[in-house]
């Protein structure tokens, strides 16, 4: 087989890999960040357990962001510069948020009781800042990296929506990983966060096509509108299903405690699919397509080989780690 036959498809393959990395990141680190965002709502005695529910995972979860930005960097160098210089300030704010969140874990674990309040606040602030800046960047990016008040306002809207989504998935994770009063609290947090998520996603779905004629065309032409109708309809069904499920929790047997998490992941996947469809074939909206921005095929092929071999292994040992720390979260100890 002639290996060069794959060359024309490489940009799309890598766009797909990057999309998957981003999706896995927002789901996995989404629940870490969500737990951080919910942190101040919990009474002090529940906070160690909230940390314990994400402690062994957060670092690996954050690595999916490194992979996503890495793919953008290596597969689409031209787009990478364009996007990141345009988002210079929010990127910096996000990075400082990520730094604060990441180190707060470790410092908190080694702090004396009298200092914990400080690292609790840094953990919360870092998680919140990260979530808000990621949402803001998503909003600005969606509108084609424009500046001006409208883009700013839309950025703020998406920032709030994504933060609510993270809070919802964080609460869903706590429902799965904890029990008792903390679980009961998480159920009520998730109900509220879910409403904000719904409002935010609906607003974005309405505003995006109005702001961009191209996106409007992609969604509302015939027959696309019929083929695409299941996307918003299924999202709506999952919202109803998840909310209904929350009404019936907590449940003595714990058989259904993972369902809210599955529900919110489904909602996120559908929302992500909608966004991806809107952007395609652009990697910098309205400016640069996936094909225009791609690296040389020889270099992409080398990465593809590595990815094809290594990614399944990564998924395998990640699942192993989740199984090791499976079940309800218990105290984390080094010794």
């Amino acid at each position: 087989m002639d290996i060069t036959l794959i060359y024309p498809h490489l940009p799309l393959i890598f766009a797909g890999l990057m999309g998957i990395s981003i999706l896995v990141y927002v789901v996995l680190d989404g629940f870490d960040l969500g737990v951080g965002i919910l942190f101040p709502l919990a009474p002090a005695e529940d906070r160690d357990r909230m940390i314990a529910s994400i402690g062994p995972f957060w670092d690996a979860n954050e690595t999916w962001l490194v992979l996503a930005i890495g793919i953008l960097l290596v597969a689409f160098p031209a787009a990478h510069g364009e996007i990141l210089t345009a988002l210079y300030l929010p990127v910096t704010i996000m990075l400082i948020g990520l730094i604060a969140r990441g180190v707060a874990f470790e410092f908190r674990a080694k702090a004396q009781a009298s200092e914990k309040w400080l690292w609790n606040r840094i953990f919360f602030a870092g998680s919140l800042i990260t979530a808000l800046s990621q949402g803001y960047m998503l909003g600005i990016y969606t509108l084609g990296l424009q500046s001006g008040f409208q883009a700013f306002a839309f950025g703020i809207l998406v920032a709030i929506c994504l933060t609510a989504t993270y809070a919802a998935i964080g609460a869903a994770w706590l429902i799965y990983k904890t029990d008792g009063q903390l679980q009961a609290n998480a159920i009520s947090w998730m109900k509220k966060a879910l409403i904000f998520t719904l409002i935010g996603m609906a607003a974005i779905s309405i505003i995006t096509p109005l702001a961009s004629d191209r996106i409007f065309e992609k969604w509302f032409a015939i027959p696309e509108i019929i083929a695409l109708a299941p996307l918003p309809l299924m999202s709506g069904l999952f919202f109803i299903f998840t909310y209904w499920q929350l009404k019936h929790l907590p449940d003595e047997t714990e058989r259904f405690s993972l369902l809210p998490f599955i529900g919110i992941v489904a909602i996120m996947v559908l929302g992500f699919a909608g966004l991806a469809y809107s952007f395609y074939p652009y990697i910098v909206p309205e400016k640069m397509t996936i094909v225009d921005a791609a690296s040389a095929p020889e270099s992409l092929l080398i990465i593809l080989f590595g990815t094809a071999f290594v990614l399944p292994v990564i998924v395998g040992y990640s699942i192993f780690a989740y199984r090791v720390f499976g079940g309800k979260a218990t105290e984390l100890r080094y010794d």
Partner: protein
Amino acid sequence: MDPFILSRMQFGANITFHILFPTITIALGWILLFFKYRYNKTGDQAWMDAYFFWVKIFALSFAMGVVSGITMSFQFGTNWPGFMETVGNIAGPLLAYEVLTAFFLEAVFLGIMLFGFRRVSNRVHTLATFLVAFGTTMSAFWILVLNSWMHTPQGYEIIDGIAHATDWFAIVFNPSLPYRLSHMLLASGLTAAFLVAGLSALRWLLGDRTASMFKALKTGVTLAAILIPLQIFAGDLHGLNTLEHQPAKVAAMEGNWETKGNVPLLLFALPDEETRSNKFELSIPNGASLILKHEADGVVPGLNDFVAEDGTILHPPVAAVFWGFRIMVGTGFAMLFLSWIGSYYLWRKDEFPKPLAYLFVPMALSGWVATIAGWYVTEIGRQPWLVTGVLKTADALGPIAGGMVLSTFIAYLATYFILLGAYIFVVVRLAVKAAKSGDKRPEPDATGKPALPGATPNQASLPAE
């Protein structure tokens, strides 16, 4: 404000802050594996106590390294988009392989290494420790491949101003890789060895006489004593390799302006680029010629060879490279004397004199000093190039405003100073706490592992598995 110099200072600050922590964790991972191996072999709980103390410092250092590393991957794009646009076809796959073969491995197994001792079998826990150490080393390998390629590029061709790979073997095993990789891994070994020795010496001074403290002390001092002669040897070879491929850097390291024979080794001087000469020279005759050419009249390149006819300076800033080199070498010799004297007392006399303990404590951070000084020599020494002969640093800068870079630079600096202070404070306090409490450990249960403390009522009711 000039966005170029500000971006350089910002990236320099980030990478300086970042390298502090991988320099510790790359080697500390292997030291922890050694503690675990000794525990498995001897069953002596003191090795496991040493492991549990040092794994906390490993965890803290690892987290600091992760968060500061993510910052850099973004700064490639925010400040230096020209880098990936020009050499992305080569840098890209190398960075991708670092993420795929190293980052995930270390991040995933770190959780099991830190918190899994009671949840997995002893064998799996040892394996997790090994995989984390292996992952950090793989990460060092890939990033040093890229860094070495930026110093001594080969295996590529330029088409329309963009580098394309022609020979991956030549790219990965470029001329400076073997020297740079050994030099850096040994630097990491020394940094971790002196950290372990210095912090153990602090515990000793605070009255700690536990077996675990002595085991760590002896491990640190001995490791340092073994690695430092290897490092001096590797460093010398690296210098000769640099002379071959980047003579301007060596000229700046030696503070030598004119190409000639019988060049002295300068112990002290103030290089002045205005007058293109040195002030207050203190030197050993023929020293530089002897070191670099192994002959008293060996010809050593001079900085004046690297000035274009129109007066453009094509060599790196002299004073920074000159002094960085001297600080690194000076620290190296201090390491040599202290670690050998320490080994002599610990192995021959079986004692640890108090003055020696006082010397080891400040040397706990000597690895940081030498590593940063050395990195400044090699990275500032590559200027004005970002990729030697391919891309100038100034040409990689993105379209960003100076004021914006300044504000983020200040924000990063403030963050880093606070975190560095907090890190040192917490590490010292962990040592003080350990010295005061001794080796407290839960009673072992039937499986031989220390017993799980009873779950408190508000803790989870379901077991882990």
